[in-house]
């Protein structure tokens, strides 16, 4: 492999403000208590959706905190250097600076090696050196065969300590980043665009709101001096967790830590994240040429790993729609039975597919998380029906307990499937590092333990407390934006016809879906042309 900056449209995060309706003054929610085993809380009554979600800071590991998962039965060493910095640290008007800085460090060469020489050094080793910037975290990851370990450690540490920061490379990577927005995000991936648009809508006015890769004007305004200064501000010891796995010994740990101790001890103060105001009923429709309509909906909520309800909600939303798996309700109801699209899923937290798998990436934690539902593109004529379908089955999740049979099936499924999430050294490291920030040691095992104590009733009670269909915000990508806006404003039924015979039960259920009142505010529907999305 070679150096690669992994910032793509699948890194679904966003910006582009949409007009909002003023909300009443919020009542702050209490901070989540420390992690504990999930048990059925004693509050069966549903609570109202919060009008805003405060920022309860994540845990802060000590500078250069080490996570080591050594094992003798592999010749490969895996590195995961996770900095608690991301696009939230982009200065206003310089959106994309953190990602561009990280990419330039990883790809642009070191003081000893030009970018071409860096590639030549890594190439025969097939060593991997990648960077993945996100909202709050930026991960430099590496893998190398132990045959080349000393050389690789030198290169990896030089990337962090002595990056070349070459002006020509900055121009090359900036051009690519602008193209990623103009030609990629806006044009070539409607699914990703829908997810980014949802993030922009839900986090409007918040440092999460802009696309991690930046805005066109933000990227164009960045200078080499900005990059040099930013590297010193955010890639610092006090923000870094060092993960090592595989063929690791004490000597490697010592030498790596000794080198990384040359990073600046501290830098910029941590960004104070504001509360996220409710986006209930808001809609953004991104208008672009498209054969089908992409749909994402969700809400920011004060729930994240470590909250006593987290495991129950994760369980409930896996039941509703585990990512790219057959078992979810949405997949079965909307795709398998009705043929609406290619897939339909639900998420309890920020989700970015780890390449080559169907699992969530590690180290993309957020202080203020969201739950979301995703319908892969549907025929435009079925867009409102599909949206209603998503909301209908979410409503069901909140208002009806799972049958014992279904609950047992999902529990067995997740007892096995969650083990697949930790099958590589890199992912095991990722979970361990995330656990430092969330305060959730042994997270997946804790999840499996928690499931042994859940019941259908406890899951439903958690869903009633924490999932609020009425609080959803909606994002669409479609060609006939005005037509869709009109259909949403009107609230008219959205009948559907099928090419094949359907069961009476399904057709009866359809009647409820067709009529379902979507929690959409007619005056909060905004159309955004794709070509202006993430411009500044």
């Amino acid at each position: 492999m070679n150096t690669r900056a992994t910032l793509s449209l699948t890194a679904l995060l966003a910006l582009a403000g949409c007009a909002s309706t003023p909300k009443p003054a919020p009542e702050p929610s209490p901070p989540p208590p420390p992690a504990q085993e999930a048990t059925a809380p004693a509050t069966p009554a549903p609570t109202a959706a919060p009008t805003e979600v405060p920022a309860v800071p994540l845990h802060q590991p000590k500078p250069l905190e080490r996570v080591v998962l050594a094992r003798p039965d592999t010749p490969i060493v895996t590195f995961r250097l996770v900095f608690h910095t991301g696009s939230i640290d982009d200065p206003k008007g310089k959106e994309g600076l953190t990602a561009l800085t990280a990419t330039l460090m990883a790809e642009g060469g070191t003081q000893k090696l030009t970018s071409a020489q860096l590639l030549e050094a890594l190439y025969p080793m097939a060593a991997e050196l990648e960077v993945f910037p996100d909202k709050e975290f930026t991960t430099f990851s590496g893998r190398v065969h132990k045959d080349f370990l000393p050389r690789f450690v030198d290169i990896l540490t030089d990337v962090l300590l002595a990056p070349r920061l070459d002006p020509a490379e900055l121009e090359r990577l900036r051009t690519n980043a602008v193209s990623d927005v103009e030609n990629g995000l806006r044009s070539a991936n409607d699914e990703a665009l829908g997810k980014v648009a949802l993030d922009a809508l839900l986090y409007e006015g918040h440092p999460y709101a802009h696309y991690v890769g930046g805005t066109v004007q933000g990227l164009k305004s960045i200078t080499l001096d900005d990059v040099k200064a930013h590297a010193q501000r955010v890639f610092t010891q006090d923000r870094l967790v060092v993960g090592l796995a595989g063929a690791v010994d004490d000597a490697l740990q010592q030498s790596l830590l000794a080198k990384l101790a040359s990073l600046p001890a501290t830098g910029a103060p941590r960004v104070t994240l504001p509360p996220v105001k409710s986006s209930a009923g808001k809609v953004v429709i991104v208008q672009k040429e498209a054969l089908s309509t992409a749909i994402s909906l969700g809400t920011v909520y004060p729930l994240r790993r470590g909250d006593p309800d987290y495991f129950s909600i994760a369980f409930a939303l896996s039941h509703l729609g585990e990512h790219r798996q057959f078992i979810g309700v949405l997949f079965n109801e909307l795709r398998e039975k009705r043929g609406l699209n290619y897939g339909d899923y639900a998420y309890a937290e920020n989700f970015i597919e780890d390449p080559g798998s169907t699992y969530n990436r590690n180290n993309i934690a957020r202080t203020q998380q969201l739950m979301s539902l995703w319908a892969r593109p549907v025929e435009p004529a079925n867009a409102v029906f599909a949206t209603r379908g998503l909301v209908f089955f979410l409503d069901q999740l909140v208002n009806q307990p799972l049958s014992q049979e279904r609950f047992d099936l999902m529990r067995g499924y997740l007892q096995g499937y969650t083990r697949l999430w930790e099958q590589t050294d890199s992912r095991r490291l990722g979970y361990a590092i995330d656990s430092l920030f969330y305060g959730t040691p042994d997270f997946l095992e804790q999840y499996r333990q928690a499931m042994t104590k859940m019941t259908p009733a406890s899951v439903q009670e958690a869903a009633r407390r924490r999932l609020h269909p009425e609080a959803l915000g909606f994002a669409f990508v479609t060609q006939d934006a005005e037509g869709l806006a009109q259909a949403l404003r009107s609230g008219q039924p959205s009948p559907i016809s099928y090419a094949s015979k359907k069961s009476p039960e399904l057709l009866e259920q359809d009647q409820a879906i067709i009529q379902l009142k979507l929690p959409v505010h007619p005056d909060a529907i905004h159309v955004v042309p794709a070509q202006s999305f993430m411009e500044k």
Partner: protein
Amino acid sequence: MRRLLPLLLLMLGLALPAAAQSPASTAFPYTLKTDTLPNGLTVVRVPYPSRGIIAYVTVVRVGSRNEVEPGKTGFAHFFEHMMFKGTQRHPEGEREKLMGTFGFDDNAFTTDDITLYYSYGPSAGLPQLIEIEADRFQNLEYSEPSFRTEALAVLGEYHKNAAAPYLKMEEALNATAFTRHTYRHTTLGFYEDIKAMPEAYDYSRTFFQRWYTPDNTLLFIVGDFDDAKVMQLVRDNYGPWNRKAAQVSVPAEPPQRGTRTVHVDWPQPTQPRLVLAWHTPAASPRTPDSALQALLIDYLVGPTSPAYKSLVLDKQLVEAIGSDAAEHRDPHLFTLTATLKEERSRDTVRLALLQEVSRLAAGKVDAARVKAAQDHARYGALMALQTPRDVGIQLGWNAGILGTPDGLQTHLRHLAQVTPAQLSTFAKRYLTANNLTMLSLTPKVAADAGGTK
């Protein structure tokens, strides 16, 4: 879901006798135990210290290459979807329950040459998995309404992929470079054929009988399990499967006799693209042609190639260069691809890439770079095997293409044996002007303004 990206297979000429064992090597540190059942099913087990996790990979040597009837393109891929629909013993929906009980990741993908199914999860579920897999491969059954509904999911998949230019580029290139061979259409198939799929229920049954046969299938089981018990279960469950693969005549592609070009206007903002494609030989266990092409990609446009250094890093005329060439069962295409930063660089970039090909064909080979590419390939292969799933899919892919259960090891051996002179000879023979098809793609926005926007 259930389908990865459509990618890319031959006829099963088993190279190994029953109960063969392929030993571990530095390039592939696992042992293959291979048996062939009397019905022709090849069963490969790979012990892997996976702490109770197994991968179960079934490769059927059928892909869009086999779609010889007009109007039935895309059917191998569509049929992959139908394989999840159930049987009399396990009606639709029951598979999800069984997979759910254990937590298997259960999916499949189709390519031009193979259809590969995998289940990945706890070894505790292996007995049930063997039973349900053997049942569906022998006794698949689905209703016409279910078939019609799934056709819409396939259409949705096409629409999803059509948002980016790649699908259109592949369609245009294949339809230009191939005049007779079924590689003229992509794995997804022609759009018109996809829209007509709901009407093809009867044909789908024919397709199943024709290709889903034990002599056209290889099974790979990777992980922690008792080999004797597993083989007994496999024999008991798959033994009654008793069909023979059909013979269809895939039209041979006649030699190309002159450069061809094809242009795509893309109606949305995107970067201009350039593809150079030459007809090259099929992958085969008996020749190094596949390994040669793999190394050729890195040699010509890899991250340490002169073209990369010049076009990407120094002159910054292109955002990326590379290749989307992959092993194929029949002669396919070797491609060089470039994502341009500006339309006006098109000729410069094309000539620069062709010059690299010419230098190689003229015998000017940098042996050190060939060696580096071989080292990269060897270590890269090792590093790509992180889980039982990785091992199973890599083995299945190569076995399916090459028609031999140890296809991956054969490929790795060929990679290590390629000489600089062979690369040069290959380029001289195949990467010629008469054998070239060039594709250009330009966004509809004024191309002569220079740049995409």
